[in-house]
């Protein structure tokens, strides 16, 4: 078994935490621009599939980047702005939940590591 800090699951959880942090910023940007005419909502994507990178090993996971892009969702308003505040708020809730989840996963793994270091019998 690999050591904890090199495990694919640890690295993937770390990547997801980075993703959630970046997505939070993008969602904040969308909400901040709710009244900017012509604004198109932004979204974050992985440059590569995380699941296939996990098969490829640690280096593949570390090499994944994120890209921020403008969506072309239909604007329901006359000013061309396509931010839907209800959607943004539900994405926000999902994103905070994901962030806590991955923070918990990382915390678990690190506490196992700590146990291995401190438990002497």
């Amino acid at each position, binding site marked *: 078994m690999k050591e904890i800090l090199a495990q694919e699951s640890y690295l993937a959880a770390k990547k997801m935490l980075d993703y959630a942090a970046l997505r939070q910023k993008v969602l904040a*940007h969308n*909400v901040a*621009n709710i009244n900017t005419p012509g*604004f198109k909502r932004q979204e974050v994507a992985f440059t590569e599939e995380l699941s296939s990178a996990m098969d490829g090993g640690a280096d593949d996971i570390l090499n994944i980047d994120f890209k*921020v*892009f403008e969506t072309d969702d239909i604007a329901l308003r006359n000013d061309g702005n396509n931010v839907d505040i209800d959607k943004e708020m539900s994405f926000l809730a999902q*994103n905070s939940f994901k962030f806590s989840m991955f*923070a918990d996963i990382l*915390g678990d793994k690190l506490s196992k590591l700590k146990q291995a270091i401190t438990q002497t019998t």
Partner: protein
Amino acid sequence: MSDDSLLASLNVSGSGLSAERTRLNIIANNMANINTTRTAEGGSYRRRQVVFETVLADATEQLDSSMEGNLGKGVRVSEIVKDQTPFKKVYDPKHPDADEAGYVSLPNVNISEEMVDLISASRAYEANVAVIKATKSMLNKSLEIGRR
């Protein structure tokens, strides 16, 4: 990717708060001046309007991150413009600012329009506050990593 993105998203929401508050101020100013017929530039008060503009991170800020795409940094008020729609003409010959025909030019402020804008601005403000709350809880959660 930049590691301060969660902290930076507080700034993004902050820019939203500040822009919406400016809008609220302008609306309050419009309502306060609904009957003002004398202004420094002469004539009646003209309704003010804020123009919002989105702020994107510039190239130098993007360089340190390997990320693609233009990361948003929030919103700002790009300018405050005067509404050029004609003034309301009200017949009131006794008014000191009435013209020869007895008509007074009252400001082109429409109270119901302002009320709608007011609600829209305060809802948008609340939405930004909700984002800040969520971000704060995430930041606190991240401090708990490795506590156990």
